[in-house]
């Protein structure tokens, strides 16, 4: 049980170490990126642009602005008109069959854009929004997942502390058990010693009693042996005399 406690303590320490290391790396990474972006003017992160402004569907606004300073608002149109007049009149631009084909194609294209454009744009924008929303949602889900993981980790760590308390209690319990066992063994030793001592005293008493009995028997035997018949006779006489005295009295 103690070894298990040690193991869990090691685990908790390892987890704490892991946590500190993870935070340390992320912090250092954040610091590095900050210094990179802050200090170096060459460090640039591309941001998504707004679509470039165009006139007549496709001609960049900048081309008109290029004319604007020199010629005013009508400049670019004048330039385009005069240039096309020159090209057509000199037949540098040849008005062959492809030109009229192109005009009809352009009319179809423009009409299509004018008629279907808004609907298609709305549908595509909706799709773009949904796509973006799905990515944002995915990102948010990932964030939630990570924060949930962090919460769970914190909870696990706090429960690990509770485990430590539990282990403390278990240790105390073991100590109590050991103490009880120790006392029980002490009691056993005491009882055993007492039993042996009682045996010894009993043995001594018995030996003494036997010795006394033997001595008494021996002394009685000797005394009996030493009594002569005269003495016995005298004794009996004396007894009879005593009895006589007693009867007299």
């Amino acid at each position, binding site marked *: 049980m103690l070894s298990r406690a040690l193991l869990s303590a090691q685990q908790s320490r390892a987890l704490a170490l892991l946590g500190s290391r993870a935070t340390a790396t992320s912090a250092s990474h954040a610091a590095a990126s900050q210094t990179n972006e802050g200090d170096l003017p060459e460090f*640039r992160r591309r941001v998504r642009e*707004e*679509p*470039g402004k165009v006139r007549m569907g*496709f001609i960049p606004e900048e081309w008109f602005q290029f004319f604007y300073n020199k010629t005013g608002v009508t400049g670019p149109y004048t330039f385009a008109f005069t240039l096309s007049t020159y090209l057509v009149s000199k*037949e540098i631009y*040849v*008005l062959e069959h*492809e030109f009229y084909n192109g005009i009809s194609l352009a009319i179809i*294209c423009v009409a299509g854009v004018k008629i279907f454009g808004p609907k298609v744009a709305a549908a595509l924008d909706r799709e773009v929004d949904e796509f973006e929303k799905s990515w944002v949602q995915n990102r948010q889900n990932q964030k939630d997942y990570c924060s949930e993981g962090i919460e769970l980790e914190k909870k696990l760590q706090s429960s690990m502390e509770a485990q430590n308390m539990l282990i403390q209690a278990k240790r105390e319990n073991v100590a109590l058990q050991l103490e009880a066992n120790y006392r029980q063994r002490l009691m056993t030793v005491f009882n055993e010693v007492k039993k042996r001592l009682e045996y010894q005293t009993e043995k001594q008493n018995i030996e003494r009693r036997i010795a006394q009995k033997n001595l008494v028997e021996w002394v009685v035997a000797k005394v009996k042996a030493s009594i002569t018949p005269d003495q016995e006779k005298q004794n009996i006489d004396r007894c009879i005399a005593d009895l006589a005295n007693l009867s007299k009295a």
Partner: protein
Amino acid sequence: MGFGDYPVEYNPQKHGPYDPARFYGKQDIPLAQVKLGELGAWFGRRNKSPNAMVAAISRAFWRWQHKYVQPKRVGVAPFFQVVVGSSILFYILNYDRITSHRNYKYH
């Protein structure tokens, strides 16, 4: 610089995420601000290797992409630009054949 590699001057630590529309070499003054007398020197400083030319075209392509194709809500402009640009290109390529359709002898 091998095929498909980043430009030699590109350093992720220094420049950040790679931007295909950006020139990572030493910046020169823009062509629009060059004085006429210094135009020769300016052209002399240009790198005229085929690699550099392809890289310049690639950067221009990506600039156009970032401006007209990659934004979040693009219009129909890039499609028309491609159509008009390609028709001009093929007009130029076929110019010799087209001129035989001229209607007038004297201009």
